[in-house]
């Protein structure tokens, strides 16, 4: 006997602007706002429906038929905006694509969101472990922020971007120089 094979997607809902559930205070760190909670009105059933509609839009009836077989929200925590979504193994990419292309919360809220699939796993245990791992990381970062430290990750990203920018500028300069040389030669 062969059992039905599933994939479990660990999903985070991120708020680039702000969450409708919560008023954002002034002194709140950006990271906390980014991982803001989702309103309770978005419940698991609604989430499934949205995903199913999205699949229908992207992949048509075929997609719905394929992905809907075992599609289920096994875990949905609005306070942390985290979900574990179960879907058929063969077609988890459809679900993933749909999630990625979702830009708004369902109808009454309509807030811009980014849905990030952080992990695809074959067992619910590993998915749960991943959620725990990430939650621990978030807690650690939030604590550091609260203590007044700068967000190391954001800092490093900023630094990296700056560095890239400088490098790019240098590259461009070099190119220009080369062009100059060519021009002078051709002349």
């Amino acid at each position, binding site marked *: 006997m062969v059992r039905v094979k599933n994939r479990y997607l660990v999903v985070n809902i991120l708020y680039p602007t702000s*969450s409708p*559930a*919560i*008023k*954002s*205070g002034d002194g*709140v*760190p950006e990271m*906390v*706002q980014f*991982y*803001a*909670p*989702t*309103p*309770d009105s978005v419940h698991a059933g609604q989430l499934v429906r949205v995903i199913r509609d999205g699949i229908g839009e992207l992949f048509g009836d075929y997609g719905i038929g394929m992905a809907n077989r075992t599609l289920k929200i*096994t*875990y*949905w*925590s*609005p*306070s*942390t905006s*985290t979900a574990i979504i179960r879907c058929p193994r063969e077609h988890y990419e459809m679900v993933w694509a749909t999630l990625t292309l979702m830009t708004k919360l369902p109808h009454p809220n309509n807030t811009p969101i980014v849905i990030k699939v952080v992990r695809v796993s074959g067992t*619910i*245990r590993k998915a*749960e*472990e991943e*959620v*725990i791992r990430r*939650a*621990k990381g*978030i*807690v650690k970062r*939030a*604590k550091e*922020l*609260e203590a007044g430290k700068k967000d190391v990750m954001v800092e490093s990203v900023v630094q990296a971007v700056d560095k890239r920018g400088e490098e790019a500028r240098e590259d461009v300069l070099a190119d220009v120089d080369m062009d100059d040389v060519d021009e002078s030669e051709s002349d």
Partner: protein
Amino acid sequence: MSDPNSKKRKGPGEAPNPAKRPRFPQRAQAYQISTTPTTTAYPDGEINVKSFLNSHQNEIKSLENAMRAAKKGLSRRAFQDVPRELRRRTASHNPRRVPNRLRARAHHEAKEDNTPISRGTSGSGIGKEKKKWLRKEGIEKSRKGWEDRKRRREEKKRDDKDTGEAMEGVEVEKDTPATTKQPAKKAKRKFALLATPETPPSRFRRRQRDKTWLPTHIWHTKRARMTLPTEPLWRFAIPLAPAVKAYRLTHRAATMRGAVAWDMSYVSTISLEGVETSIVRLLKALHFSQETEDDPWQERGKAKKWKKGTRMWEGWLYEREGKEPKGVAPVTVIWSVTEEGSTKRKAFIRIHPCAFLQLWNEVIRIAKVQKPAVTVEDLRFEIGSIEIMGPGAAETLCSILHPSSASESSSPQALWPSLASVTDPGVLPPGALLAFPISDPRLRDPPRASQIAQDAESQVSFMETIAMWPIDGSQPASAIFDRNARLAAARSLPSQKSINRRKSTEGDFGEYPPSQQTDPQIPMLLYVSQKSKSWTILLPWKCVMPVWRGIMRYPLSTGGNPRFGGLKERRQVYFERSVPSFPFDYPGCEAGWGWELQERAVREHEWTKRPKGKRIEWSTIDLDSGRKGELGDPWACDWERLVQKEGGDVSMNGTEDRTTQSSLRQWPSRDAREVLAGRPISPEYLSILHLFTVKISMVQRGTPTTCARIYRLPTNNTELRSKWLSLLPSANSSSRKMAERKTQPTSDQPLPEQIQRRDLARSLLEPPLVRNGPPKAGEEDYPVVPDEEELIGFVTTGNYNLAEGMPTAVANLVLHRVIEKSDDWKGLDKERRVCIVREAGRTIGRLATWETPPATMSEDNPADSAGGDAPEAIALAQGALEELTRDILESCIQNIIHSTAISCHRTEKQLRMQSAATSAESLALANLELPSQKNSQSNTQPSLPKAETDAALYENGRVFLKGNPLKTTPEIICPHCKLPRLMHPMMGKGMQQPDLTREYCMLYPWVQRPGHDVYGNPFPTDMTKTKKERELLKQQQKAADNQSVGTPGSQDTDMNAGDGTHKLNTGGKPASYIPWHTCPKCKRSLLITRFAHHLDKCLGISGRQSSRNAMAKISGVNGNSSGVGNTPIGSRLGTPAPGSQGDGPIPKSKAKGISPVKNLRDNADDDEGENDTPEKKKKKTKSSYVKKADREKMAKEGTPSGTLKVKLKTGNPNSERRDSNMSEKRDRESESIDPEGAPKAKKIKLSIGKAGSPPAPTPTTQGSPGAS
């Protein structure tokens, strides 16, 4: 809602189908992960870090819970949780057989699964037939008896009242020997009295009427199998073995980690009190320890310390009388330390209960004659003991035996805790002894692991303690020798209730309650035995239980608790050390003999219990060479037989066990060792049976068990002897040793590493010598068991020895059989130590060697005494094998690569040579041809063919190469078609685009491409396509071919149509190729996919007609043979080809039954056929039947005339079935009916075809003029 009879369809939830009920219902809870909604996580609706952290932490918690719940939700059955040692094989699923704590769960599971719980048919509460309850009857009876007695008592009381004499209630009498001496006590005590056990509480009294319980009896009955109530052992109820599996666990606990403890309270203690000299004289009179190397009576060293009371001594005690005293039992003698101001001393003799009475009688007799007299006291039920073995024994004891009072630094109490790190009692001084009072272990419950100091300082002090053993000087007199102290300790033991109260009120939580003045001081004496590697604790009888409980609860540092053992475990431990254990392995002693007799009865009973078909029929055992039946009593170590045979005058009636016993002597192993080593012996030693204990180790296979017979090598049959000796692997080992010796000097000189390695590799790779080894048991030439006069002894304990990893045995041999001639006794050579062991009831003997136990028990190497003839293992340097393997592998791979490269090179070179020659030859021929054509007219002499290329020189048929063809010849030219070969494949791996303007040989290099064969064709995948599709494909391909690439089949035409650019094809067969095969009967070519179907039809072995044909065949054998004699009937009656049937009016065949419709059609066909001209016929055959090749041939030859065609066809051996059929008919017709209007020649020709492959000469000659 509705009446039960309503036929309305019930709702889905109403009556769930019981069959659909899930077998293991999943718990929904496990997969529901709880979450907190946002509103509760952020109550004020505002985002803040604190709530954020909280919500994430909650998430972590809930997910962890979910994972835990999921794990718990895994279905695990109750019997899977049964601990390993309690697992059972039969009825493991039975809820009544699992441990109590799992029973409820198991019941629940069984109920859920709808498993019927079977109940046994024995035991209480259920039962057999009408009786139902096995014990019911007995209980009923006892109740009745009790009522009767009561009534009688009352009657008696009434009578007594009448007589006026009162009587107390009936008291249960002890039938111990003491009670018999009760009246003597009152008058004058002549002899010391045997002790009586204390009267047990009334509810246990009846159960101890003819036996005594150990102090831990109740504890043991719950955990061990005890001796049967009716068959006590040595008047005690002794635990035989733990109820759980224990064999391997005991082995581990006793040798590797942990500890095994035994309640040894059944060991008897005799107390001697008197002046030191008297006691010494008493012991000397009993020949104490005369067998040991050390003299216990010397005034120095260990002996002096022993007599001082700080050591103990183990040795044998012997009977007082006799020239050669008979051993009674091994005993332990402990002196009390001298007390100042008292001349009297005390000593304990500890002896096994089975020999107690014998010794007791001796002792009291000698004690009486001593002056001043020695007071003897029987302390059997006053002093109990615990023995504990194993590496964890010391730490256990250090934790449990807590000194009741601290004292100065060198006292035993102070040193005691430092001994916790001892794992082997061998490190302690021999016979070390400690005595100090301990506190009640129940006050220090639960026991804690004893602290083992690991720092260097304590290590040094520990070493110093062991080396100096300051206890020798500081040991005070032990209170255990004092009767009052023992009784006081037993009396002052607080009840468990009061201890519990103290533990709950006094002291801090988790701490032991502080000691009090009133706490009992339990006198304790502890000694270490080097022989048995055990610690023994002597305690007052009543104080054994608290200490025992403490030991059993001690958490060992290696994990777990100490185990406990029964009698079986004790024997096992001794056996694994190959040490004889008393009394089981000493049949020469009275005690051992008693044991042997008892075991005989048990074994015989076991045998008789079995059904007749399942027990060994001793009388039929065939020992070869005419001997039948087992030697002596098959259930016994039949020493009587040895006695009988030897002394003819010793008259034996077989019943006189006593006589046998008196003629047996257990011989100390030291004497045995010395004699066997060559000490001369006096001849009277051989007059009685001297038994000595040996250890047997098997040479080849076989496991000796108790009662196995031991033979020496046959002495009077040299042939048999040499046969047995050939089984010894000695020759092999000696040769190996010699080889070692040979290699030894060579390794001194440093050889080059390479050579060394090569030699080693060779020796490793050498195939094992095909040795025509010694015969195996059961083979024809396996030697037979020697005769009875070669019997030298019996195995007393034998089994697979876990300590040695091979079967061993402890056996007793008879001295006079081992030593045949006493006059020139030189000691045993090695060959004499070889013996043959045959188990009782077996016919096959096994070769074994025997050896006496090693001299000192502290040496734990049983191999020591075996001598140094064991071949030492070859030691390889670390990593040598790795290196060697790598080298061998590397050289192997190099060889493979090298040979591949060489062969490749060679073929290439040959090809180039050939192509150089070919090109030169073709050039020469071309040169030759041109001039010859030119000069044909001029008629000059034919010039010699000669040509020269830059690779070769052609000269009159011989080719000379110029230099290396690999360099000079760039391309390979096929020697057959003279065309250049393609060097690289056209597709797939290594593909190179060939020059399309050139023409290449058809032998292309093989193609390596996934999904394609070596010709570059894709694997056929379109087999499932319909015919139409295939045809369409074919057409498309054809069209494509016409445009670009030619098929291989059209090669010839392509060559002709060559217009400068030769098209290349991939060669091989097309992708949709299906092979065809020629039918062996009708010679038609058929696709193999249709072949089977065709064969069915063609051979007429299927279809509706076939059965009829078969019937015809069967009936036709005796029927019409009117035709040509050798024509098989089947060929005529078989399914005819259309048109062949109606060639003549054959009503019979028609009547045989083709369906009317078919007949009609056939007839129509026939009519046509009859009128057919040969041309017409030919046309028909061409259209469907003729093979393609034939067709082509015909097409080429053209069609000059009809006759010619026919002739061609008929002359062809591959002529068709239809023709043959037809011709056959015609033939028959020609015989019976007038020929039709067909030409004569044709007829003849046809007959040729019919005749088959070897054409008859006349028709051919007739036919050929017709053809021409």
